[in-house]
């Protein structure tokens, strides 16, 4: 496959992600930040993001598994995830986090444990779902970029 085709494919993937709303302007900004000086910036960021997110998701799952749920911790974690997802421009994940935090807040406000526990559980599921969807795309993106870079380096050689 030619370099052009790969580039095309990558662009198409990114564009489709924009169209679907998976990514937002922030990702564009990041793309702009990636230049000759830091060629692997996006890839690095994505890896960082994925690692961080997976850790947080694992923590959240653990927290919600406990008999007594510490909603403040949950909220803190969701806040972190929201921060990192908005930093990479993962719009859907960010929105899901916003929703999740709302439930947490409502929980703190109204104090009805039963309802909000399941809501939070669901919200977590939504976040996970969105995240894994994005993760899949990101994986593809990373692979493509790797291949492009490989190609480029080969050509340079």
């Amino acid at each position: 496959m030619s370099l052009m085709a790969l580039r095309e494919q990558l662009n198409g993937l990114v564009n489709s992600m924009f169209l679907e709303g998976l990514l937002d302007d922030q990702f564009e900004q990041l793309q702009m930040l990636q230049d000759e000086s830091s060629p692997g910036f996006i890839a690095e960021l994505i890896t960082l993001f994925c690692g961080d997110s997976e850790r947080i998701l694992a923590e959240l799952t653990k927290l919600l598994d406990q008999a007594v749920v510490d909603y403040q911790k949950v909220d803190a974690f969701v806040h972190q995830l929201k921060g990192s997802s908005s930093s990479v421009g993962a719009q859907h994940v960010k929105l899901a986090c916003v929703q999740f935090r709302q439930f947490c807040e409502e929980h703190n406000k109204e104090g009805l444990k039963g309802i909000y526990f399941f809501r939070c559980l669901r919200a977590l599921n939504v976040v996970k779902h969105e995240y894994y969807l994005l993760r899949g795309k990101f994986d593809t993106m990373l692979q493509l970029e790797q291949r492009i870079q490989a190609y480029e380096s080969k050509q340079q050689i």
Partner: protein
Amino acid sequence: MGLGTVAEGDKRWWWNRNVIMVLWMMLSVGFCIGLHCHMRTESLRKAGETLTSMCEERARMLQEQFAVSVNHVHALAILVSTFHYQKNPPALDQVTFANYAARTSFERPLLNGVAYAQRVVHAERELFENQQGWMIKTMNREPSPVQDEYAPVIYSQETVSYIEALDMMSGEEDRENILRARATGKAVLTRPFRLLESNHLGVVLTFPVYLSGLPDDATAEERVKATAGYLGGAFDVESLVENLLHQLAGNQEIVVNVYDVTNASEPLTMYGVHLPDGHMSLSHVSMLDFGDPFRKHQMKCRYRKKPPVSLSSITTPSGIFVICMLVGYIGYAAWSHYDNVKEDFRKMEELKKQAEAADVAKSQFLATVSHEIRTPMNGVLGMLDMLLDTDLNLTQMDYAQTAQVCGRALISLINEVLDRAKIEAGKLEIESVPFDLRSILDDVISLFSAKSREKGIELAVYVSDRVPTILTGDPGRFRQIITNLVGNSVKFTERGHVFVQVHLAEHVKMVIDAKTGLNGHANEVNITSATTVFSTLSGLEVANSRNTCESFKMLLSHGASLSCTFGSGSVPESIADKVTLMVSVEDTGIGIPVHAQDRVFAPFMQADSSTSRNYGGTGIGLSISKCLVELMGGKMNFTSRPHVGSTFTFTAVLQKCGKSSGVDTKRSLSEVLPTCFRGMRAILVDRQPVRAAVTKYHLRRLGIITEDVRTINEALHTLSGQNGYLNSSQPGKQPSIFLIEKDSWDPKIDFHIRNQLLQRKEAGHIEDVPKVVLFLTTESDKTRAGSHADSIIVKPLRASTIATCFQQMLGMGKCQNKDIVNNSASLRGLLDGKNILVVDDNKVNLRVAAAALKKYGAKVECVESGKSALSLLQPPHKFDACFMDVQMPEMDGFEATRQIRIMESTAYKEASPDDGSVMAIRHLPILAMTADVIQATYEECVKCGMDGYVSKPFEEAQLYQAVAKFVVSQQIPGSS
């Protein structure tokens, strides 16, 4: 007295009422008895008066009669003195005297008889006895013993002839009388005693007869010496009084007693029987003067019977008593009636309160139950979610998904019921926060995009330019209303369009007024001609003729013209805080049957039961929406024609957002639209002017200037400049985008366009071949449309979708607005070579921030906690600025900043003498990085010593602003 007296008070009052009644009874009884007594005494007094007068009358008569008799005896005495002593020989003898006395006895009715006794001293006794020829005898008819003096009767009236020759001195009473009479020269009376013979009670009257005429002032001794004899008469008082009383009226009623009271302690009865005292309830005593100063007499009168109690003294009080009782009863009855009514009223109040409370309780119950149902339902849904994540075979998956869909439907129903109950219980409060109406509408549209694409319905939003970008109100509720209306419309529409419009209410009103004045006929034409293609969004007829093309166009044109007039003339809305929005949701669905139209807003009412079978849903949404609209101070109504469509319209009063909240709020609230299309030109091919207007609205939001034409040919003409009004007006700027609606599109003309465009380019009419964009309503059209268009946008339109598509198509992925390019240049100038510390616990954020700052030439160092930041910032240090995340575990940004500031001040104090390190311990600019930019956060930032804040993720403009501030302020001391 208040109505709300408690039970205790009531009891007291009830008790009092009876007491008052009893008191009243006692009072009236007392009054009646008093009255009775008064009347009794009054009648007694009258009886007493009568008795007195009767008694006095009797006494006077008796006295008179007595006086007359005494006078006669006196006259007789003078007669005796004249004819017996002054004649010599005496001219009087027993016969003459008896005769005379008998013939004059009518003059002395009170006297039984009179007799004359001569004074005889003992020395003359013998002589006297001889003269008379009889012996002087005592009262006991015995010869008189020797006495100093004798008073033998010599003359006597025949009635008392039995006392002749009796010595008067021998009787005790008589002797005493005689002595007293001759001493005083007046008539004297004896005390009452039983008279001889008659044995009646009587008194003896004695009158002295003197020998010669005595002077009136003669002494007692002279009188005794001159005494010749004594004239006496016996008063038979008993018969006397008897006779007297018989002559007077009322004799039967009274009892008269006459007493001699000379000895006051021991009254002697002269007349009448002595009755026991107990009987003498009423009596009168009259003094009698019988001419004897020595003796005192009195007459005592009393009623024979006790005076009878008068009838009136009984009937009058009884009558009054009866009246009093009646009055009392009436009062009592009125009072108890009043009490009863009051009690009833109180009960009714209570019942009313209970009913109201029950109503509230019902709503609360509904709310609580709904709430409680949600708990297990959420559990069910959560579990289903998790179940769906597991490995299921297709059938199981299907079952689980069905269950989930049903559960979601139930949850949404319960949420609606809860909302409704909250509204009824008055618990729902409308928030007041700034929000961007346009992005909310975009969101709602996106929500239904899948459905509308599936159904092939045109779903569009249009917000008038005159509606302010940021409004203050309740975005959640606003979204809920719109979502509900659009959801309904999408649900009931199978073909055509759903069109949401937002205008200012005043503006709409103005236009409607103008329109009805100008061309009222236009609507009729549209309605009557069935074959006409209607000038609506999709070309189908709509229910509300108000939204036809004409009025819409007028709205648009007025929008432009009015903004001019408002600029110069009266500015009603820009001054007033409130904005009244008019939102209409128009569809071309099945409409609402006429018979069901009046209960559309009633909860749980659908047009008919088959509706819910065909379309599902509960029908509670509209009623909730209506309530919400009313809470927002608006009204909701609708027009609907069966099989044509419905148009729901509502107004909402929102607040204009204050100017102070400025750009930041706007940025945080609204979705940021890229600005890189500003000034671009596009040509839109659309047969439907309304649809074109909607498309233009979205493009305008992106800053793209759009020219709309009806057909592709026209567009080509415009492009080449043959038609040329656009080009002539603004030469040099070529439309770079060619937008085509799907109904103008055809695979056949696809090539045609492309060829034409290429031809034109070659001919030099245009510099670039414009990109062709095709608008579609369904995904399936994509394949049909072929790939000759540069890009395809599937409706519903949304500014951000268009933007993304264009960016992609034009390869503007990295393009940014010029300003920002400038900013980044200057940012580079500001930040180049600076040492910057970034503190954030989130690695991803850290990395992004670092990359962004590095791009501008800054040397960035990253730490992940406030503590490590503190250790790095121990003065002296090399950093020029610090970006600090606010929310961090252990030590948050605020705390870290505070500590840094403390360190700085202490270091400054220590280092102030030696000037070498002054620069190093200057005030380090610290900027907060935060995701939620609200006023409170900013204030706290400033409070704990931060210099400003930037939002995460970084935005160049803002970053520039924030950085420029401190870099400039810092350069001044540096340069000095």
